[in-house]
Each structure stands twice: as C-alpha cells, then as structure tokens.
C-alpha cells in the first residue's frame, strides 16, 4: 500500500468521452502516468490505494471481454470497489434502459462509471444524467478513447516518440470507433496517418479528418512505421459491403508478403479480438513484429492512468 505514482497530472475535465478535445499535453500527461503504472503492474505487489473507498461501475450494453476485464483490473489495482453490470436487452428498449439505468446507478453514488454502448453518442447522453465521472469504453462507431491511448503508449514505448511516424490504419474504418479515436490522437501528436480500405468500408469525408486515403494496401503500407489492423465487424454489416471474407483477405488481409512493403522495422498492432485469416494472417499476428500482446498489457496501465487522473478531480469530502 506504500506505492504512489509520482506524476501529479490530472485531467482538466470531469469525464473522458473521447480523444476529441484533448490537447497534446493532456495526452502526454496520461501517457507519462501510464508509464509509471506499467512498472507497478510488473511487480509482485501491484495494489495501490489511491482509489480506496471509491466505487467504480463497469456498465456494458455491448458484450466485451477484454475491455471490461481490463477496466476491472485497473480499478482493483488502484484500490476501488468494482462492480460489473452487463445490460443486454431487446433492441427497442435499449435506449430507455440507458437513461433509467443511469438514474438508478447515480442514486447509488458511484465515483466513476465506465460505459460501453452500441449507439454513437449514448455515453455522452448518459454523462448528462449522472453526477460522477464517466469514461467512454466505446460508443457505436464514434470513439474509444482508452484504446487510442493504449495504442499510443505501445507505440511510444517501442519507437520512442510518435511525431513524424507514419501510421497506417487498415480495414473496416466505417464501423470503427478505434479508427476515429486513433486518427484524432495521432494527428494531435504529429504523426502522419494513412487509412487503407475498400471504399465501401470508408466513411464519407474521412480525408477531412487529416488522413491520406489508399485503396491499394501495398501502396498504403510503403515506408510505414506502424501497421494497425482493424477487426472486420461483420456483425454490424447490413447490406453488401464486401463480397466475401476470402476476397477481403486477398486484398486487405495483412500477410508476410504485404508486410514487406512497410519499413523493415515496422510494427503490427490489432485492437482485438482478431479474425485470423480474415484481416490478419497468424504468421504476422504471432510474429516478431507483432505488438498485439503488449497492447493488452498497456491497456491495464492506461486505464489505471485515466481512472487516477479523473479521480484526482473528484471531491474528497
């Protein structure tokens, strides 16, 4: 119980709803704090006391294994009491459940609520109805800020810095909140960002978000420092967007041959869960250039940093 992080960084806002609106100082502050937690997480004694007495609720309207367990572990390692709630209800009643659930939970006086919801903007809506801090763990195709932060931490620890790197984001950009949060964060920190996807999986106006758009994966991977693969979200696909996973893998799946077009020291990332053989070949996913396991480790540290940085704003009386 003796360990304390040394950085005094605190976020200047009550909620973390997205990367949009964070300054480079905010992001670097969170990453510096995360670095300290990485070291603590590698010790035998991992338990801190900075959130002792605090209540953290994980409210998931969409099934999740890794994000939910990552937040749970992060909260517990900081000493908070953690409660997990999975709310799976009929599609028609989901929205109604959202605000009712918000009011119910608010009455229990939690200090932090982590929310994932299938609709864009739902977490912000919920945040308007509660008095505690809210952390967005993914809302529709909008944002997933802690994923972008853990990706940034992983890159920074492996490449030393983020500015001037060429980062290529490949795959289902249309349905991806991870892509949106990463595009905003990487631009804020001065990276050069490219997206690679079939045009049916690119949202309209994506180039206005500060990315180069490529349809040819080999072209897009040229001289890349980081290759971020996205999961093909087949469950969200309504209508004909790609003809088959076989054709998709042929043109947009990352295999060893395509990876050769990137820099020799390029590193490969994936937010998980992976569709092996659809967007990424196992040889690459498990290969020497893969950072996928490290991303998971960084996830716990980043979430500890976010909880800590928000909790420092909470009233102490």
């Amino acid at each position, binding site marked *: 119980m003796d360990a304390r992080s040394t950085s005094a960084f605190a976020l200047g806002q009550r909620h973390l709803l997205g990367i949009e609106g964070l300054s480079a100082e905010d992001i670097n502050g969170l990453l510096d704090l995360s670095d300290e937690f990485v070291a603590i997480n590698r010790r035998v004694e991992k338990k801190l006391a900075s959130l002792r007495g605090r209540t953290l609720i994980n409210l998931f309207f969409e099934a999740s294994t890794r994000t939910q367990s990552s937040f749970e572990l992060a909260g517990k390692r900081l000493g908070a009491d953690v409660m997990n709630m999975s709310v799976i209800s009929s599609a028609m009643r989901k929205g*109604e459940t959202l605000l009712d659930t918000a009011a119910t939970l608010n009455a229990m006086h939690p200090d932090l609520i982590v929310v994932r919801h299938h*609709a864009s*903007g739902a977490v912000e809506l919920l945040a308007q109805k509660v008095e505690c801090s809210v952390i967005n763990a993914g809302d*529709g195709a909008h944002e997933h800020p802690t994923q972008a932060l853990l990706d940034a931490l992983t890159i920074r620890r492996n490449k030393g810095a983020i500015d001037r790197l060429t980062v290529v984001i490949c795959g289902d950009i249309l349905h991806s909140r991870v892509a*949106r949060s990463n595009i905003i964060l990487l631009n804020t920190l001065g990276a050069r960002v490219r997206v690679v996807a079939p045009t049916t999986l690119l949202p309209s106006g*994506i180039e206005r978000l500060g990315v180069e758009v490529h349809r040819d994966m080999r072209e897009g991977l040229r001289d890349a420092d980081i290759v971020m693969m996205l999961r093909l979200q087949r469950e969200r696909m309504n209508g004909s967007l790609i003809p088959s996973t076989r054709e998709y893998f042929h043109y947009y799946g990352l295999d060893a041959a395509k990876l050769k077009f990137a820099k020799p020291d390029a590193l490969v990332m994936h937010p998980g869960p992976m569709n092996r053989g659809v967007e990424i070949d196992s040889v690459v996913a498990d290969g020497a250039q893969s950072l996928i396991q490290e991303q998971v480790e960084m996830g716990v540290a980043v979430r500890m940093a976010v909880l800590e940085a928000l909790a420092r704003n909470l009233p102490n009386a």
Partner: protein
Amino acid sequence: MLRADTRPILLANARVVDPARDLDVTGDVLIADGVIKDSAKNIRAAGVPEGTEVIDCHGCVVAPGLVDMRAFIGEPGAEHRETLASASQAAAAGGVTTVICQPATDPPIDDPATVDFVLRRARDTAIVHILPMAALTKGLEGNEIAEIGLLKAAGAVAFTDGTKSVMNAQVFRRALTYACDFDALIVHHTEDVNLVGDGVMNEGEFATRLGLLGIPKAAETVMLERDLRLVAMTEARYHAASVTCAESLEVLRRAKEAGLTVTASATINHLALNENDVGSYRTFLKLSPPLRGEADRVALVAAIKEGIVDAIISDHDPQDVEVKRLPFAEAAPGAIGLETMLPVGLRLVHDGSLTLLKLIHALSTRPAELLGLPGGTLKAGAPADVILFDPDVPWVLDRATLKSRCNNTAFDEARLTGRVTRTIVAGRTVYEYV
C-alpha cells in the same frame, strides 16, 4: 369550416402586405361578415360601419394568414403527441390560419369516414382551419391506390403517403394517372428507402466525425428524378413534399422549364439550419429528410426567391420525450414548427435573402393556390384569415412556453426577431399576444 364572426374590424395604420397583388403599402384593412371588405389607404377617413372595432396597428404588418401544407397531428390515434385543438392553438400563435394535416394517423386517413371525422373534430375543437390530406395508397403501404375520388369528395385537399415514399414505380405511375381524372394533387416524400438504409443524418464529414451512418443526397434526387419521369408520362399535378439539396433544385428547374405540372416545398428547418446544428447528438435536430450542408441551405433559400421551390412548410412533427431522449440513431425524427415558422422565416428577410412579400407568398399565397383554397390574399371578398405581426421585436424562444403538446423544437433558446401579435380566423380574433 369555422363559423364566421360578422362584427366589423378595422386594422388601421398598418403595413399591408398582400403578395397576390404585389402590394406592400401603408394602409387599412376592413373586415366584416367573416370576409375582407376592403384594403386600401385610409379607409378610416372614408368612414367605417357603425360598431366597428378599430385596432391601431402602429405600422405593424397585416398579411394574409399562413397556409401550412404539412403538419402532423396525432388525431386520431396519437393524441398524446398532438390533438387538433392543441395544434390549432400552436398554429394561431404562429400566425398559421390553415393547417393541412397528414394522413399518417392511427387509423390512417385513407377512408372517407376518417376524413369526415377529422373535419368535424376540427370544426368543433380547433380555432384555425384544419384540412386533411388523405392517403395516396391504402394503409400508407404503397401497394394499392386509395379511394381518391371518394376521399376528395369527402374533403381531402391532396393525397400523400406522408413521410413514406411509394417505392413501387408501377403503383406510383397508376396513382398519378388515376389522380388526373379527379384533378387531385399528389404530394410525395422523395427518399429512396434503400439508399437511406440505416442512415440517420446527412452523409459527409460531420456524420463521420460523430460516428453516425449517413444518408446520401442521392436518396432524394434519385426518387425525385424517377417521379418526374412518371409525371411526364401522365401529366398529373405533382408536388415534392420536402426538397433539401442543390441537386434536387436542378432537377426541379429542368422539369419546370419543360412545362411539367410540378411544384415543391421546403421545410422552414432546412431553410434556417444545417447539419452542423446537430452539434453533439441533439435529437431535436434529427429530421427526415436530414438537415444538409450550408451550401444546400443557401441554394434552397435562393430557390424560394426564384420560385423554383414554391412553398415553405413547418413540417410540424410533435414527438414526446420517450422517443427523443435516446441515443441519436435510435431517436424518432421530427421537430415541431407551427409556432415558430414565421419568426424563423423572418430571419431570411432580416438577413436580406428574401423580401417580406416573397416570404409571405411562399408561406400563404402560393400554398393556398396549390391547394385551391380561397385564402392567401387580402383582396376584397377573401376569407378574413388575417394576421398582424411586428417584424422587428426581438425575443428568445423558451420551449416551455410553446403551445404544442410536445416541445421538440429545433429552435430552443434561439434568438428570434418578429412575432405574431394577433391572429384572425374567419373574422374572429383567435390569438392575441399581450
């Protein structure tokens, strides 16, 4: 029809605006027996009938009451959203003296008995004229033509499937052809439902930033082009219910130049707002068709000025809290508008885009013409549906004060300039702002 008040009223010292005669002058308007007797300079000096109520307008505008071609009223079946009575209170406060209600009720207005029900209920409970459009297809299902002849005889002023498009081109062609025999006006919502898909706002950068699925402008233009091909085959009277983008205006311009009997309206929302007003997922700004970009809004205003788009509608659509306090993608579309259409329209006059004559033409005179109604003018003999408004008084909209049963306005806390001070329907003052 509402019973007329026979007592004479003189609206003196007014700015008389009558688009039907291209008239914008200082003068008086005399009303008696439920009709306009005279509008000219200094009627008062020439002598008025004994017992005339003289109202000094202090230079405020006197204009024909507004005629709103598209407002949803939930009677029968959705009275919690709006009744004929509550809609008429909102309309009166907004200077709308004739409301055309939509057939998407429960049951839908696709039967002459339902037309009759609405007309009787309106006569007994409403303080402005309310006339129904009837369904174009049975049950608004887009499969079989409704009884256009009987419905028109019962009092339906036009035919529409409301916010649904008739996707089957064969059915739509037959509806247009059949409507010709009864000289019926067909009003059509132009959106291809497959191209709309799961979209919830205008397709483009802003939707992408919000992580929302977009609706392409082509969804509207594709359907409008199809319709106009069919109109060319049938010579039916066709009215596009709500056009929103510059591409559609080009299509309309070509059709009008080719001499087709085509008209169109635009909603006050699309003339005053753009997609950026959605802000951080404001569901009151979720509309169907969606708000477009600023370039489209500007083009739409220009099209009103030029007459490519004929009429301005409120597209009044009351939605309660249960269907609006939801994540954006799950919320119902629609905004109320009867009470704010004129003040918001005056923004376009104050910023120099439209003359007051043009605005009143699009809000009153032109829709009355399209529907074959007697109002929309201050000519002697016209019904005494008249409004008085101060075009320059500033105020801030508080949605709690609105008269509709729902408060889903797209203009909450908006700064507005100009408001209605008196609404007269059939010679009777039904609303007064004090």
